[in-house]
C-alpha cells in the first residue's frame, strides 16, 4: 500500500493522543493536534521538551507508543516513513555527503521513479527557487551553512510533499542569515501552498512564521493558539515566561473580581489580569520588560526600585533594577537611567498578568 505523493493536499491531519516513551521516560504525552491543509504550525519549547520526538513520530521515523495519526480519517501512523509522502528538513541538514547538490535534490525523485527528463526539469526549477543554480554540481562540504540549508529545503520540497516537517532548520545559522532564511521559508510556504510543521526553540521565529503555535513543556502541550493569542494571553506562567514575560514578581492574592485581580507585593498593591480564575493564594505577577515604564510620581501600580545594571541598546536601555524584597525587575525604557538611581516604575494593570504560583 502506498499513498500518492504528487501535488498532494489534505483537508486535515489529526494527531490523536500521540504518545512516545523511551523506556520509562515519556518524551511526548498525549499530543492532540489538528493540522489543516495549507497551515503553518510551529512547535515551540525549550531544548529537551519533546519537539523533535513529536516531529519524528509524525514523520514515521519513531514508532508511536500510543495514539494514532489520521489523515482525512485514514490512519497513517502504521505506514513507514517512505510511504507517508512527507518531506523533512533536518536540524543539521543531513545532506548525503557523497552526492552533489543536484543528486541530493534528485534523490527523492529517483526513488519515486520519476523519468529522467522530468527529474532534471524539476530539480532545475527547485534549485532556481532556492537560488542555488550555480552551485548545483558542488558537494555539501563545499557549501556554506546557508547554502546547505537551502539544499536541504530544496530536497524536501522538490517532491511537492503533503506536509513539510522542519526541525530547527535555522539554529545552525548566524543571526543575519537566520532572518533572511526565515523570510525564504515563509515565502516558499506561501508560494507553493505547502503545509508546514516547524520545530523551534526561538519564540520570535515561531511568532514570525506560524499561523498557529503549539507550546510544549516536558512532552505536554501547554497552549495551542494563533501568535496573537499566545503572545497576548499566555495560558500559564510557563508559557508567559517563554513569551517574554521576563519579570515574575512573587505576590499574594488579595482580591479577585472576575478577570481582575489585586495582589500584594510587599507594602504595595498591584492590579492586574488573571484569565483563568485564580484559586491559589500565592501568585506571580508577570510583565514584559518593555511594558514597564518610568513614573514621575507615586500612584496606582507603581513600585520603587534601585537601578543596578544598565545596558545600552541604541534608542533604548535595558535596565535591571532591584525591588525592596530583593526581586529583580527588568525594564526596557527610553529614559536615561544610571546605576544607583532610585526610580519609580509603573506597571500598567492591563499588561500585568497574574498566574497562580503552580499554574
Amino acid at each position, binding site marked *: 500500500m502506498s499513498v500518492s505523493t504528487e501535488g498532494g493536499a489534505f483537508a486535515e491531519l489529526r494527531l490523536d493522543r500521540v504518545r512516545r516513551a523511551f523506556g520509562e521516560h515519556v518524551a511526548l504525552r498525549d499530543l492532540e493536534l489538528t493540522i489543516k491543509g495549507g497551515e503553518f504550525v510551529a512547535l515551540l519549547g525549550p531544548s529537551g521538551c519533546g519537539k523533535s520526538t513529536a516531529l519524528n513520530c509524525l*514523520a*514515521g521515523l519513531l514508532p508511536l507508543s500510543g495514539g494514532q495519526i489520521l489523515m482525512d480519517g485514514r490512519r497513517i501512523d502504521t505506514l513507514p516513513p517512505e510511504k507517508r509522502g512527507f*518531506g523533512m528538513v533536518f536540524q543539521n541538514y543531513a545532506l548525503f*555527503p557523497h552526492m552533489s547538490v543536484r543528486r541530493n535534490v534528485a*534523490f*527523492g525523485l529517483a*526513488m519515486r521513479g520519476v523519468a529522467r527528463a522530468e527529474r532534471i526539469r524539476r530539480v532545475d526549477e527547485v534549485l532556481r527557487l532556492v537560488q542555488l543554480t550555480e552551485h548545483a554540481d558542488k558537494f555539501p*562540504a563545499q557549501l556554506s551553512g546557508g547554502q546547505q540549508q537551502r539544499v536541504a529545503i530544496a530536497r524536501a520540497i522538490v*517532491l511537492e510533499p503533503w506536509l513539510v516537517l522542519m526541525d530547527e532548520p535555522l539554529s545552525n545559522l548566524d543571526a543575519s542569515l537566520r532572518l533572511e532564511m526565515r523570510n525564504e521559508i515563509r515565502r516558499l510556504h506561501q508560494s507553493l501552498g505547502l503545509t508546514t510543521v516547524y520545530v523551534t526553540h526561538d519564540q520570535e521565529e515561531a511568532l514570525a512564521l506560524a499561523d498557529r503555535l503549539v507550546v510544549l513543556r516536558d512532552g505536554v502541550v501547554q497552549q495551542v493558539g494563533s501568535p496573537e493569542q499566545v503572545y497576548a494571553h499566555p495560558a500559564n506562567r510557563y508559557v508567559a515566561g517563554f513569551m517574554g514575560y521576563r519579570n515574575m514578581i512573587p505576590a499574594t492574592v488579595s482580591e479577585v473580581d472576575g478577570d481582575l485581580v489585586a495582589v500584594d507585593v510587599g507594602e504595595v498593591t498591584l492590579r492586574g489580569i488573571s484569565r483563568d480564575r485564580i484559586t491559589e493564594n500565592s501568585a506571580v505577577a508577570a510583565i514584559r520588560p518593555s511594558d514597564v515604564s518610568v513614573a514621575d510620581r507615586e500612584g496606582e501600580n507603581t513600585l520603587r526600585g534601585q537601578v543596578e545594571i544598565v545596558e545600552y541598546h541604541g534608542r533604548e536601555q535595558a535596565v535591571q533594577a532591584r525591588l525592596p524584597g530583593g526581586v529583580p525587575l527588568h525594564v526596557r525604557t527610553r529614559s536615561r537611567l544610571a546605576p544607583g538611581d532610585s526610580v519609580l516604575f509603573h506597571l500598567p494593570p492591563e499588561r500585568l498578568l497574574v498566574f497562580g504560583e503552580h499554574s
Partner: protein
Amino acid sequence: MRLVGSPGAWLVWGAVAFFLVNLFGLVLAVVVNSFSVQWFGTWWPNGLTTDYYASAWQDLGLLDVLVVTGQVALAVVALSVLIGVPTAYALARRNFPGKRLVTVLFLLPILLPPMTYGIPLATVLYKFDLAGSVAGVIVANLVPSVPFVVLTMTPFIEQIDPRIEAAARMCGARTLSVFTRVLAPLLVPGILAASILVLVRTVGMFELTFLTAGPGSQTLVVSLYESMFSAGIRAQQAVDAVAVIYTGSMLVLLVIALRFVNPTQLVTRLKEPAP
C-alpha cells in the same frame, strides 16, 4: 612544528635512528643471503646468484602455496566483511539489553592469544574432519577476523549521522535503496580499510593456520616456518629466498593499505568522509 632542537629530541631521534639502522641491517642480511652463492663468517658473500629463488620456487611448490594463501586471504576478507559489517551496524545503531555482553563476546577473540582458542578449535575441527583442509584454515582465520571487522567498523558507522538514513527515508527510499544508494557508498572507505587490515593480518597469521593446516592447505608463513625448521635439509639461502618473497608481498599489501588507511586515524576517524 619543530622536530629537533632540545637534547630530549636528539635522544629520541638518535634512538629511532639506531633502531632503524639495525632493522635495515637485519633485513639486508636476509636479502643478501638469499642471493649469495655461499656466505659464511665474512663481511660479504663470495658471489651472488638467483639460483635459490628458482630452487625454492620448485622445491617448496611455492606457486601452490601462494594460490592457497590467496584463496584463504580473500575468502577470509569477504566472509568477515559479510558477517562483520551487519553486526557492526546493529551495534552502532541500537542500544539493547545485553549489548555489553555481545561486545565482550566480540572482544575476547582479539584479547586472547590465538593458541588459547586455536588448540580447542583445532580439536573440534579434527572432530568434524575439517582440519587439514583449506576450508578449515579459512574457518580458523575467521575467528579473530570477524571480531576485528566488527570492532573497527562499529565506530566508523557510529560517526555516520543516522539522520542521513532518516533523510533518505523521508525522500521515499525503501530499506534496500537506503542501503545501496546512501549507506553503502558511505561505508566503502571503512570497509576497504578493515578489509586490507584483515588481509594483512590473515597473510601474517601463523598460529591458527599452523594448528589447522595440513599438507596442501599451508599458507606462505607456515611453509616458511616449516622450511626454516627443517633448515638442515635445505640450504639457508632457499629459506631466505622464501622469506624475502613473503616480506615483499606483505610490503606491497602494506603500502596499498597505507594508501587507504591513514595510520593516525586507526582509533579516531574523520568526521566526514571526503566527497
